[in-house]
């Protein structure tokens, strides 16, 4: 057991995560040979939505995650629209895109500066930045001081991004503006101008500070450009619908780190629970079906996360997967590539924003009335900042009869599946060298590169 290291809690992420790694000498280097990730909180969202008005789902599911509430609000609206056959005005589509893009930006900037940076550089000499793990610090005092200034600037920028979103969406987080049928706020010239001004400031920060800082960290820790490749399977559901069926990020898959982009068939998604604290039932159930019950304790289980699989295979999802599948970033798969793709994506979104704002019709319609059916099903897939997000809905007697969500972190931080195949992050941790067994900072670097959000992942809505 001396080889088993446990970090609990893993901090600087949303929600509760525990990691166990087995460390052994391989070719003379102490490194991770096996890893287990446990989501240690059960949200129990399962029954919350059942029996409620289907229009409430876009508000209630935002409460799954305070960092990425926007994609939940958008995709819940889309799932109900799918069930109703409702079409939304172009203005509503664009406003959803604008607010979702802002949500990506705030999440990515917050992730790099406030959740990840302290794995590489020292923070200020006071709580909550002390006590810290002083291991493998390669960045000198003056460069650290500069990065900490950027940490503070980034807080201000994150606030500004949220302000830009709130100009249209009412407030952030947990905006009331996402409703099936469209969006609540009609765009005004003043709001568009305000957003444009914010976008310019944010773009300047991303270009002059965020991207150079990621490059700087990469230059100081070059070996992380080769670490944590994982299984190389990448998945994206696609997002930011543009005119006539096109989208900024298309859906697709990459298998084993190479080759052509493969098509995505939502039917091939199934969830495994052999290693999760849920009662056993049929294997590999599609999210639109299935009855599952929490079961604690359970022999062999170690997580409140289920293990979603595509055609029985684990897939990594997130900015790198999305950017790779869209052909916008294909330099490699590693800790550093995950950070670089995330930063690059932030820039491309903020640069796309002014064009999207141009497409808004001032004073134009944002909402189309629709009738909720008494019976029906609907599903919608989208990308959240951290990757592929799906909502599946069934309506009976005009109420929600079944609701299921699979979040990005469910894919990435999933435990072993029915064939005992590790989840993407568990796989990526294997081969990570560990210098100090008391303070395995290398493990944190690998985990944080995926930007896990356990608040999202540990509920798995399934009824």
């Amino acid at each position, binding site marked *: 057991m001396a080889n088993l290291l446990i970090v609990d809690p893993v901090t600087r992420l949303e929600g509760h995560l525990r990691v166990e790694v087995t460390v052994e000498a391989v070719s003379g280097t102490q490194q991770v040979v096996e890893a287990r990730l446990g989501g240690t909180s059960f949200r129990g969202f399962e029954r919350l939505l059942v029996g409620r008005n289907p229009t409430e789902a876009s508000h209630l599911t935002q409460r799954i995650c*305070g960092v990425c509430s926007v994609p939940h609000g958008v995709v819940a609206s889309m799932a109900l629209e799918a069930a109703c056959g409702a079409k939304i005005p172009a203005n509503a589509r664009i406003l959803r895109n604008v607010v979702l893009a802002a949500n990506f930006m705030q999440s990515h900037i917050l992730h790099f500066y406030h959740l990840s940076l302290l794995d590489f550089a020292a923070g200020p000499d006071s709580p909550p930045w002390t006590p810290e793990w002083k291991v493998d610090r390669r960045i000198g005092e003056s460069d650290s001081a500069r990065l900490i200034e950027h940490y503070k600037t980034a807080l201000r920028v994150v*606030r500004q991004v949220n302000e830009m979103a709130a100009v249209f969406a009412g407030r952030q987080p947990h905006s009331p503006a996402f409703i099936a049928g469209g*969006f609540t706020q009609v765009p005004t010239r003043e709001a568009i101008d305000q957003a444009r001004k914010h976008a310019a400031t944010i773009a300047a920060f991303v270009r002059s500070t965020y991207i150079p800082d990621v490059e700087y960290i990469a230059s100081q820790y070059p070996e992380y450009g080769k670490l944590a490749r994982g299984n190389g399977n990448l998945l994206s559901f696609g997002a930011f619908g543009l005119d006539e069926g096109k989208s900024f990020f298309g859906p697709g898959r990459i298998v084993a780190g190479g080759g052509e982009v493969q098509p995505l068939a939502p039917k091939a998604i199934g969830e495994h629970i052999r290693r999760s604290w849920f009662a056993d039932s049929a294997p590999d159930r599609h999210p639109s079906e299935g009855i599952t019950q929490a079961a604690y304790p359970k022999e062999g289980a170690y997580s409140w996360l289920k293990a979603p699989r595509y055609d029985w295979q684990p897939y990594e999802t997130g900015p790198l997967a999305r950017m790779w599948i869209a052909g916008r970033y294909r330099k490699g798969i590693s800790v550093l590539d995950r950070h670089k793709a995330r930063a690059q994506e932030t820039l491309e979104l903020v640069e796309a924003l002014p064009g999207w704002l141009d497409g808004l019709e001032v004073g134009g319609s944002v909402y189309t009335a629709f009738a909720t059916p008494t019976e029906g099903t609907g599903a919608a897939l989208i990308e959240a900042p951290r990757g592929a997000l799906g909502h599946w809905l069934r309506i009976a007697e005009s109420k929600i009869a079944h609701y299921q969500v699979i979040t990005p972190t469910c894919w990435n931080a999933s435990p072993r599946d029915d064939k005992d195949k590790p989840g993407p992050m568990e796989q990526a941790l294997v081969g990570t060298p560990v210098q100090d067994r008391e303070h395995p900072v290398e493990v944190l670097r690998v985990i944080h590169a995926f930007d896990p959000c356990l608040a999202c992942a540990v509920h798995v809505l399934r009824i």
Partner: protein
Amino acid sequence: MLITRRSFLKYCAAASAALGLNPTDLWAVEQATGRPEAPSVLWLQGSGCSGCSISFLNYISPSDPKDAADVLIRSVSLAYHPTLSAGAGQTVVDEVKRADNFILLVEGGVPTAFGGHACVPWSDGGKEITFEQAVRDLAGRAKQVVCIGTCASYGGVNAIGGNPAGVKTVREVTGGSTLHVPGCPPHPNWIVSTLVSVLQGKNIPVDDRGRPTSIYGRRIHDECPFEDRGKARSFGINGKCMEDLGCQGPATGAPCAQMKWNNGVNWCVQAGSPCLGCTEPTFPNPAQRRRGRGQGRGPRN
């Protein structure tokens, strides 16, 4: 780092003007937070979404070049926050155990199912500690317990519909006194001003729902600029009263209409949405009206 304390006070001046604090109070803030014997702050997250923390960060990064946010964190000595703490594992657990003069902030409800194993925020020496245990233990030792957000205060979204996680409020679990800063999420001003008052050791008048009356004493509807502009009959029409579309403003105590959100740029009703009543114990169900005005209607979009 002391220069930043000045900008902190500048920030407090702006924040507290809205909440009726005066410059003498601000001097006291500096005294309260700056002296070595000032309590530290432990921020725990249970069954929730981290949205209260994100809302808190939204305020504490104002556009002034002297970043007040980080000053606040510094001044307040945030000894533990799961999303912000640099350390991890036993290092931060030891820090929490060591705290002996602290204010406890709890975000999220307390899951009690499976003997509390529905939520395990950390392990101590290899032993799993449930959130329920952690809250009980720390609340017993804290100078004051403050519930941040509707979930910790009243259960909120996580406690509706017979949740199998058995989510309870902090007060239900500890049986002790708690101060409530509800909202889903709460406005950053509400969190900061309450924390400041607590650190000052001030007596904070609260209503029958445990909320500071200085913040929650007025109803949204009474201050709503759209109250007399005619009723909206459908979504997508802005600038009208949303009461017929299920607005909870008439029964909801909060200063949103005056204070607005995200640096004062907008708020729910201005954005063409009904107020969802997120500061009330009933949330996300319809809020209970007072003064015999009957029950609010549910959202009807």
